């Protein structure tokens, strides 16, 4: 019976530790954000979030996120597909490089693009000639967002595709199914939940990206400010209501993503139960 007692103590200690930790590091700041956002009343809050710059920042954030998710879904699927289904030289290198954005600091990611597309770059004359603006403009922000989020989808897909093996695809191919049919009917159903989960993670990360975007944006209000940059700007300007109101938009978006994630996990697990 001593063992059981010890376990109960351990159990409750762990539970209380986790709860305290979450309360201190997550719930409290969230409450504080909302409290500060509404500190000067609903009207002030409403004014802050309907401020034209706030709306523009939110729209730019959504735009960058949509681009990043779209591009990374395509890239993630192709990368995961080629890494798991084919044997070729340089496979190890590709799969190592995919992880790079996770390990490299976002600031460096931003600087890489400044160096690649900026005035000192050998590409600049070409970009200038065709009037293409990348850095200090929306394309730069999109590029930076894509860069920091591109491992998320492929990293979700690779383990699933590896576990699945080739048999079902081979069976379908032997019966005369075309590559696209095989992908749609056999491969995609397997990776559906992993893919959606990757998309959710990618979205969350893309919306919150600050470092890389900050380097590339140039901080032009209403033009190249994303929500996180806009929040920082307001905060530096002592506009706490504005900063926290804008934060609350991000928080709401994040919560939506979080709920989606939980729902997806549930659906995915249910599918696994039936179709293990």
């Amino acid at each position: 019976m001593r063992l059981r007692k010890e376990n109960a103590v351990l159990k409750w200690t762990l539970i209380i530790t986790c709860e305290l930790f979450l309360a201190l590091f997550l719930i409290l700041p969230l409450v504080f954000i909302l409290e500060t956002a509404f500190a000067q009343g609903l009207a002030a809050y409403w004014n802050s979030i309907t401020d034209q710059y706030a709306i523009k920042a939110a729209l730019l954030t959504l735009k960058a996120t949509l681009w990043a998710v779209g591009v990374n879904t395509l890239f993630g699927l192709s990368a995961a597909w080629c890494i798991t289904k084919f044997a070729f030289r340089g496979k190890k290198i590709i799969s190592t490089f995919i992880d790079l954005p996770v390990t490299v600091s976002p600031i460096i990611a931003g600087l890489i693009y400044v160096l690649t597309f900026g005035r000192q770059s050998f590409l600049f004359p070409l970009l200038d000639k065709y009037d293409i603006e990348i850095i200090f403009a929306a394309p730069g922000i999109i590029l930076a967002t894509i860069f920091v989020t591109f491992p998320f989808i492929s990293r979700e897909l690779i383990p699933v595709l590896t576990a699945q093996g080739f048999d079902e695809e081979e069976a379908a191919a032997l019966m005369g199914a075309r590559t696209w049919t095989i992908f749609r009917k056999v491969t995609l159903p397997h990776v559906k939940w992993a893919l959606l989960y990757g998309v959710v993670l990618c979205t969350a990360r893309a919306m919150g990206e600050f470092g890389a975007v900050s380097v590339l944006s140039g901080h032009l209000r209403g033009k190249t400010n994303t929500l996180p940059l806009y929040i920082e700007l307001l905060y530096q300007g002592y506009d706490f209501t504005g900063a926290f109101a804008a934060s609350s938009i991000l928080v709401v978006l994040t919560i939506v993503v979080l709920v989606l994630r939980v729902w997806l996990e549930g659906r995915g697990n249910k599918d696994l139960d039936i179709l293990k």
Partner: protein
Amino acid sequence: MSQADNEIRDAYVELRGVNKRFGDFYASKNVNISIPKGRLVGLLGSSGSGKTTILRMIAGLETPDSGEIIIDGRVVNDIPGSERGVGFVFQSYALFRYMTVYDNIAFGLRVKKVDAATIDKRVRELLKLINCEGLDERFPSQLSGGQRQRVAFARALAPNPQLLLLDEPFAAIDAKVRLELRTWLRNMITQLGITSIFVTHDQDEAIEVADEIIVTNQGQIEQTGTPRELYVNPKTPFVASFIGNTQPVANYDRFRYFDSLGAGTRAIIRPEFVAVFKKGENQRFVKSAEQGVVEDVIFRGSNLEIKTRIHDVVISSTRSINDSILEPGEPVDVFIYRLIVVDGDKIVVQNNKSLKEESVFI
């Protein structure tokens, strides 16, 4: 199998001088096979012997480095697997997990754009054939191992292939169901008359199911023949030691009525070559029997395995559970009917000489 035989046999599937390498590993070395139409053939070998590679090359899932693969008189090396008219049953079954049993079976026909009514008719027909009527809305994970295997079989048969290839069809099924399925599959294939090749590492399975067995070893074909031929008349040392329950014996001329065929030769003895008699029980071989002592008696369910020591060698044999009981330490008469003598690459089956002498006496 000689060249002349090949031509007489009117092969449906033929491999001519096929080689296949994976890096440094030779999966197939100059493989020549010929399989007549309607035959049920087992490719038998231990793992890594190249049997699955042969099957996958016939299906078009692998490409040979050199040599020709011929199906129905057509060289199919450059024809994709989907146009070779083959049905393939994977070891893991590879059923489409996210499709129902019905959709699984219908897949091959839908891909070929067959009209829905014909598909429905064919699927119902196959469901009936595999005794899975009423399971059409289930997913593969909701089926038992045996049912999955039969659905995989039906799926492979749906597009009416001329050739059915099965990779270790019973490997993933538990022992009891496996025996039932073997019989079922054999009857089914015989009934349909479809030329079939299956891969197995289990010699009992090959012997029981196949009309003809091709024994593979280290990427090469060791011997082709009916199960009985392989059993009674092994052509290579590998086949002699691979088929049946074998035990090697050096200095086999120590047994009475067997002569040594020269230095360096060794013998292979199988339990069914040996009869063990309780003292006084033996009528026929009383004069020519060896004297042995029972070392161990092991209950094998349907029979007893008797380990007997003769001249410092322990030899296994079987005995019916209905026979009188032998105890360890008991002296017994042992009669050895025959030995398989391995002389380098050659195989000689040597019969007990006293059999001839006795038959002269009788």
